[in-house]
C-alpha cells in the first residue's frame, strides 16, 4: 500500500484544520449556508434526509487494517444521532413502511468510498481529525470537482494484469487533490483506471476511463475514454486515444479537464457533465483536447510529464508485502487438503468456488468477503463487523483490504494454506455468503431510507429479492448475473449497467420501479459496457420480485449449454433479444394486478 509521507500527513491535517475553521465560521454566521455548502461538500459532508452524511475517500479502494479500525471506531462512537433526530427519522420512515434504520454502521459505495449516515455536523471536525490520524479524509468525495479515483479491486494481484495501475492512480490522486484550477468544474468528474485485461472498474462508465496496455512496439500506455456517465442520459465513454504514452497521462488529463472547465455547460446541471459536451461537440471537442495537449507539452513544457524516476519512487510504495514466517508450501498437498474440506463441508466448497479467485502468485488467493446477506443492506457494515474485518485483514491479508465497486471487501493477500481458517472466521462474522457475482450479490444505493435525492427506497427491494433467492442451489444454477438498484436517476446504484437494472421513480407520491435489461459494466460477465433498455411502464414494489423471477425463468427456459458451462443470463439475452424478457416481465405485472 501507498505509505503516506510526512508531506501527505501534514497536508491532510491542514485540510482538517481548514474544515474546522470553515465549520466554525458557518456556525457563527460568517459563512452563509450557500457559501458553506460547496466547502462542506468538497470535504464529503452532505445534508441528507434525516441527518448529515459523511463520505470518506478510499483512494483507489485500498484500506489498511488500521484504517478499518478507525472506521469502526467512527461508526461506533459517532454514527449515533441525537435522540430527537432519530425519533423523528423513525417516525417519518415508518409512514412509508421502513421500521428499521441502522445506526453505528458504515456503507461501502459503488465508487469504493465509505459513508456514514448519522454523524451530527457539530462533531464533524472531530471526525475529520480522527480520520486524519490514519491518513484519511473526505477530500473531493463530493462537489463539482475531480472525485476520488477508483481502480481495479485486484490491482497488483490479478493474473490478468498488464501493469499495476495503482502507482498511476496515486500520481493522479496527488495531482487532483486541491488542484486550484479544477475545484469548481461545471459538474462532478470521475476517473477510473485499470491495468488488467478484464475491466473490473467499469472504466467506460466514467468521465475519464483509463486502461493500461502495451502498443505494438512494446511500450506501456493508456487507452483513454472520455464522456462516460450514468444519470439521466447514460453514455459510455468515447475513445479519445487508443494509445497514450504513460508519461503524458497527467498532461493529457489536464487538457481534457481544461477544455471541459472552459466549455462545459453551466446553465443546466442535468446537461453539465462532460458526456454532454463530448456528445454535443463531437470531433470538435476531441480536436480541442488534442490542441490543448500539444500546447501543454510544447508551449508549457509538459509540466506534468511523469519521469521514470518519479514513477519508480511511487511504485516503491506498492511492493508486495513480506509474508513473515511463512513456511514453504506444497501446493498439490494443500490442494487435496482443500478438496477434502470442501467435500466434508459443502458450504466451504461453494465459497471456494464463488468467493476465491486466482492470484498472480500461485500460492496465494484473492478472497471476497460478501456484504450481501439477509437483514443488512447491500454494502452495509456494522461497527463490530468493521472491527472483525480489520482482524481478518491482519491475520490473513498482510494488513490490506480493498473496497470493491460491487460493495464488497476483497482480501488481496491470502495464503492458500489459510483458506479454510479464513472461511471459518468469515462465516462466524457473517461475511461468508458464497454469492459473489450471483443474483443476491446485487448493487444497491442507500435509496429513500437515507438519501434526500431518492424517489424511492432501494433497501427493501434488495431485501425482498434476497429473501426470494435464499436457495444456494437455485442461485448457483442461475449463475452469474449483475442486478443493480438505484433509488433515483442519479444512478448511484448503477442501474444502467445492470444485466437487470431497477430504478426507483416517484409517481403521485408513491414508489414505483422501472426495470431495465441488457446493461453491462464492461467486465467479463458481459460484452462491452452499454446501458440497459426499459422493459415497460414501472412496477409497484410488490411486483418487483415477481418481475425478477419472470426474467430469470425466461433465461432458464432459453439458455443453451456452452462447452464448459451454461450460457449466462446476459449471453442468452444478447442472443435471443429483449422481446421474450420484456413480455415475461409485463405478464408478471398483469398477474400481480389481478391477484
Amino acid at each position, binding site marked *: 500500500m501507498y505509505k503516506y509521507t510526512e508531506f501527505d500527513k501534514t497536508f491532510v491535517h*491542514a485540510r482538517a484544520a481548514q474544515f474546522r475553521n*470553515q465549520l466554525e465560521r458557518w456556525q457563527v454566521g460568517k459563512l452563509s449556508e450557500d457559501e458553506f455548502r*460547496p466547502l462542506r461538500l468538497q470535504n464529503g459532508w452532505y445534508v441528507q434526509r434525516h441527518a448529515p452524511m459523511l463520505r470518506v475517500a478510499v483512494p483507489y479502494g485500498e484500506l489498511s487494517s488500521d484504517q478499518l479500525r478507525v472506521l469502526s471506531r467512527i461508526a461506533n462512537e459517532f454514527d449515533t444521532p441525537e435522540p430527537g433526530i432519530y425519533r423523528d427519522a423513525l417516525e417519518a420512515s415508518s409512514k412509508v413502511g421502513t421500521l428499521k434504520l441502522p445506526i453505528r454502521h458504515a456503507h461501502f459505495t459503488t465508487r469504493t468510498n465509505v459513508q456514514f449516515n448519522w454523524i451530527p455536523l457539530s462533531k464533524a471536525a472531530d471526525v475529520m481529525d480522527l480520520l486524519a490520524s490514519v491518513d484519511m479524509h473526505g477530500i473531493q468525495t463530493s462537489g*463539482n470537482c475531480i472525485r476520488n479515483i477508483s481502480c481495479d479491486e485486484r490491482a497488483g494481484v490479478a493474473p490478468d494484469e498488464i501493469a499495476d495501475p495503482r502507482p498511476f492512480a496515486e500520481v493522479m490522486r496527488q495531482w487532483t487533490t*486541491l488542484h486550484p484550477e479544477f475545484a469548481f468544474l461545471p459538474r462532478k468528474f470521475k476517473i477510473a483506471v485499470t491495468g488488467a485485461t478484464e475491466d473490473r472498474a467499469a472504466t467506460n462508465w466514467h468521465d475519464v476511463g483509463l486502461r493500461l496496455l502495451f502498443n505494438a512496439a512494446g511500450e506501456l500506455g493508456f487507452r483513454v475514454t472520455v464522456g462516460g456517465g450514468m444519470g439521466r442520459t447514460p453514455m459510455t465513454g468515447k475513445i479519445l486515444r487508443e494509445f497514450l504514452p504513460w508519461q503524458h497521462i497527467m498532461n493529457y488529463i489536464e487538457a481534457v479537464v481544461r477544455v471541459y472547465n*472552459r466549455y462545459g455547460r453551466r446553465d443546466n446541471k442535468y446537461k453539465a457533465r462532460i458526456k454532454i459536451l463530448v456528445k454535443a461537440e463531437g470531433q470538435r471537442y476531441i480536436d480541442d483536447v488534442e490542441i490543448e495537449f500539444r500546447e501543454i507539452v510544447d508551449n508549457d513544457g509538459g509540466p506534468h510529464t511523469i519521469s521514470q524516476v518519479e514513477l519508480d519512487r511511487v511504485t516503491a510504495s506498492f511492493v508486495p508485502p513480506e509474508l513473515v514466517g511463512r513456511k514453504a508450501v506444497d501446493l498439490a498437498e494443500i490442494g487435496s487438503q482443500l478438496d477434502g474440506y470442501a467435500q466434508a463441508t459443502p458450504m466451504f466448497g461453494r465459497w471456494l468456488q464463488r468467493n476465491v479467485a486466482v492470484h498472480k502468485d500461485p500460492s496465494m488467493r484473492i478472497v471476497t468477503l460478501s456484504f450481501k446477506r439477509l437483514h443488512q443492506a447491500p454494502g452495509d457494515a456494522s461497527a463490530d463487523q468493521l472491527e472483525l474485518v480489520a482482524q481478518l485483514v491482519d491475520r490473513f491479508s498482510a494488513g490490506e483490504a480493498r473496497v470493491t465497486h460491487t460493495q464488497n471487501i476483497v482480501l488481496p493477500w491470502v495464503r492458500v494454506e489459510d483458506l479454510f481458517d479464513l472461511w471459518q472466521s468469515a462465516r462466524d462474522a457473517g461475511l461468508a455468503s458464497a454469492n459473489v457475482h450471483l443474483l443476491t450479490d446485487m448493487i444497491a444505493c442507500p435509496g429513500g431510507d437515507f438519501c434526500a435525492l431518492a424517489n424511492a427506497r432501494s433497501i427493501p427491494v434488495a431485501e425482498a429479492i434476497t429473501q426470494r433467492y435464499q436457495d444456494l442451489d437455485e442461485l448457483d444454477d442461475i449463475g452469474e448475473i449483475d442486478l443493480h438498484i438505484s433509488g433515483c436517476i442519479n444512478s448511484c446504484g448503477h442501474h444502467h449497467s445492470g444485466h437487470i437494472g431497477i430504478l426507483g421513480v416517484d409517481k403521485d407520491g408513491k414508489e414505483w420501479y422501472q426495470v431495465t435489461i441488457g446493461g453491462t459494466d464492461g467486465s467479463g460477465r458481459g460484452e462491452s459496457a452499454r446501458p440497459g433498455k426499459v422493459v415497460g411502464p414501472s412496477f409497484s414494489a410488490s411486483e418487483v420480485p415477481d418481475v425478477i423471477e419472470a426474467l430469470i425463468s425466461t433465461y432458464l427456459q432459453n439458455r443453451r449449454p456452452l462447452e464448459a458451462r451454461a450460457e449466462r443470463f446476459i449471453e442468452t439475452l444478447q442472443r435471443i433479444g429483449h422481446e421474450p424478457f420484456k413480455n415475461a416481465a409485463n405478464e408478471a405485472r398483469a398477474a400481480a394486478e389481478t391477484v
Partner: protein
Amino acid sequence: MSVTARIKLISQADHAQELRGNVVRLSNSDDPLDLKAEITTATCVELEFPSFTDGRAYSQAYLLRRRLHFVGDLRATGDVLVDQLIQMERMGFSSAVLKEGVEVADAYRQLQQFTGFYQRDVSGQS
C-alpha cells in the same frame, strides 16, 4: 510573477477609487486568447466571478499567465469567497476585491492554511 508575492486583498471602496491605467475586464465566457492585442497593452486584467462556484476564471488565469505571458495585475472581482483566495493566488491572480463585510484578518488566515501543495502553481513552482 513570483510565487512569493502574496495576493493583494482590496476592499470594494479602494477598488472603486484606485486609478489603474489600462484595465481589461473579462467575463467568464470570454476567451482570453481572442483578446491578445488588448491584453498585451493592459496593466490590469479583471476576471469577474459571477458566482464563486463558477470556476472558468481559473482556466482563464492559466491562459493569461502561461499562454499570453501577461505580467500585469490580474484581479478577481465579483463573488470572491475568502476560502478561494489561495486557489486564486496559485492560479496567478495578483489581487482580489473582497466582498463587503469580509474581515481582512479572516481572509489572510485562509492564505495560511497549507504549507505546501501537490501541484506546481501557474508559475511552475511548487
